[in-house]
């Protein structure tokens, strides 16, 4: 049974998406298609400076991509990286599926033994 070491890239990804404010920002970017620190701060109760800081974290994790539009950076969600994050969470669900199957097997074996 191999125990792979945690990938540091994934650590960044998870902490980036682990924050509720940043997930709200991702939601807004997904709905609008794109946004800037200014448009996002107008839609949320977060200062423009705060939003810019969060965007930096998302950018470093590869969850958003920036292009320069005039004075401000325009951000879009990186679909592939977001899909990767979502897939990792579904793996948590898959881990529970496997655990529940084991619970089922163990409980049913105990039940059979008691009936014999």
């Amino acid at each position, binding site marked *: *049974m*191999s*125990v*792979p*070491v*945690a990938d540091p890239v*994934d*650590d960044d990804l*998870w*902490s980036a*998406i*682990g*924050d*509720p404010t940043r*997930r709200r920002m991702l*939601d807004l970017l997904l709905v609008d298609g794109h946004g800037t620190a200014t448009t996002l701060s107008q839609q949320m109760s977060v200062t423009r400076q705060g939003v810019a800081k969060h965007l930096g974290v998302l950018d470093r994790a590869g969850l958003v991509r920036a292009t320069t539009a005039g004075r401000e950076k325009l951000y879009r969600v990186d679909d592939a990286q977001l899909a990767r994050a*979502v897939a*990792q*969470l579904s*793996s*948590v*669900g*898959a*881990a*529970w*599926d*496997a*655990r*529940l*199957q*084991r*619970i*089922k*097997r*163990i*409980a*049913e074996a*105990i*039940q059979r033994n*008691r009936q014999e």
Partner: protein
Amino acid sequence: METGSIEREIYVEASPEVVFEVVSSPEHLKQWWPDDARYGTEPGSSGEIVFGDRDAGGTVVALTVVETRPPVMFSFRWTHPAGETAAEGNSLLVTFDLAPSGAGTLLKMTETGFREMGWEVAVLEEQYRDHVSGWDFYLPRLVSYAAKLAVRP
């Protein structure tokens, strides 16, 4: 995108008493999840579960029993930092609900807290994902597939 909780349900051909024992006792827990488990089963009892070898780079994770109502409900928190009291925001809450169903038990599992604490735990889960692969993951699917085939005219 609701990603804060995971819910699963499974039918077990065993009495709620037996299923309760399997989901709550440390002796059984380590058969279906970690490599080692040490905790008291009274509400508020703290302990730990260990993935891998405790003395050889294994991961020790805190676990605290929240509520226990044999044979209908068992819940615990895990992943809180060692020494901290388990609470909303620093841990994941796992709840098992058991209901008699026919000759067996309908077992429902809910894990919540991902939104509150960040997803570091998912990284931990990812590390031990090897538990998922292999026959014990694919066999049940094969069984339900076979059952579907069997009911065809």
